[in-house]
């Protein structure tokens, strides 16, 4: 607590929270939430049959809040390393605006309510999958893998890839190939996305003692792995078209974007020194966000905005 003016002489030290509502919104990692909502919406719209829009909206809201709860719990657990890293030291806990205990309570409350809400609004398979996603992100990724192995974001990436499966399950009560394909795309996208960032921020991660790939295996090896994952991702991105649940327009876009992804990854692999290397990694990181956003947005547009007939062609 930076502001201690509430304390009069001799008075007990009161744990007064100074946080504004926007600080609590920051705990939810809103930018991550927005990608979760988009991927969940894509998974939901791929579901066959009609879903009542109110049920769909409430389910999406529950998934978004569940993702936010995972973000808050992640910030609670990682407060020590967030305070060390330049990228994260402005977050509500390390900057002193919210205490760890408050963040823990907030995260647990939202996690419980989001799972219960999804179970009551949609079905308990979806709720179980959402609970598993939160558990996987916090316990498997944050508590275990993140500080233990350079494969942390490879395995942990499953948590970020699950929302389309949760949303599809909310709409249908089952899991299908379509939702698994979206899972696979996001899962394969995660390593090159995060390793591009890790190349830029390797000093930050080293100070915090996080065994990211560049800090453990070296930058050269990371560049090779980025290229390998990018080459695997590009054809995976085409699967929605190949399997018939996206149009030729999607197929063309996924092909072009996939080729660009590989080209940028190849440049990261070639440019290994100085400013050119950093620029290449930054461009790949920025493009990777655009890549996933455009693919998911096109699926949403085709299935949600009446362009689904294109998918049948």
């Amino acid at each position, binding site marked *: 607590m930076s*502001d201690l003016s509430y304390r009069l002489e001799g008075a*007990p030290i009161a744990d007064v929270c100074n946080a504004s509502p926007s600080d609590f919104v920051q705990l939810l990692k809103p930018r991550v939430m927005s990608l979760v909502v988009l991927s969940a919406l894509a998974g939901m719209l791929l579901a066959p049959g009609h879903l009542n829009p109110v049920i769909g909206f409430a389910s999406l809201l529950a998934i978004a809040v569940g993702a936010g709860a995972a973000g808050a719990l992640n910030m609670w657990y990682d407060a020590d390393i967030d305070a060390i890293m330049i990228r994260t030291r402005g977050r509500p806990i390390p900057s002193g605006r919210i205490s760890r205990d408050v963040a823990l309570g907030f995260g647990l409350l939202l996690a419980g309510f989001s799972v219960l809400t999804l179970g009551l609004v949609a079905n308990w398979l979806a709720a179980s999958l959402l609970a598993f996603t939160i558990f996987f992100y916090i316990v498997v990724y944050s508590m275990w893998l993140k500080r233990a192995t350079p494969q942390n974001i490879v395995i942990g990436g499953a948590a970020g890839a699950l929302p389309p499966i949760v949303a599809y399950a909310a709409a249908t009560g089952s899991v299908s190939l379509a939702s698994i394909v979206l899972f696979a795309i996001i899962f394969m996208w995660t390593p090159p996305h995060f390793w591009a960032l890790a190349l830029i921020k390797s000093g930050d991660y080293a100070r915090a003692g996080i065994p990211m790939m560049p800090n453990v295996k070296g930058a050269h090896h990371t560049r090779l792995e980025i290229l390998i994952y990018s080459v695997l991702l590009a054809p995976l991105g085409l699967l929605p078209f190949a399997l018939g649940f996206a149009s030729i327009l999607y197929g063309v876009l996924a092909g072009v974007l996939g080729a660009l992804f590989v080209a940028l990854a190849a440049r990261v692999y070639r440019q290994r020194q100085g400013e050119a290397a950093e620029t290449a990694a930054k461009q790949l990181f920025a493009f990777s966000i655009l890549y996933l956003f455009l693919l998911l947005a096109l699926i949403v547009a085709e299935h949600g905005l009446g362009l689904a007939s294109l998918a049948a062609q």
Partner: protein
Amino acid sequence: MSAIVDQEPLGRRVVLSPAQQKSRRARNIAIGLALGLFALLFYIVTIVKLGPGVLNRPL
């Protein structure tokens, strides 16, 4: 916490600064809105799940 603080002699009470009062008020409003929207969401979902038949009953 407040109950304990309220029993303290006047000079020992915890007095919030204007900034703290402002942030507490903002948090209270946010919690109120969130709870209100949560209740509204459950009401609407309940009506949707019950279907149009919910209105088809003798008065």
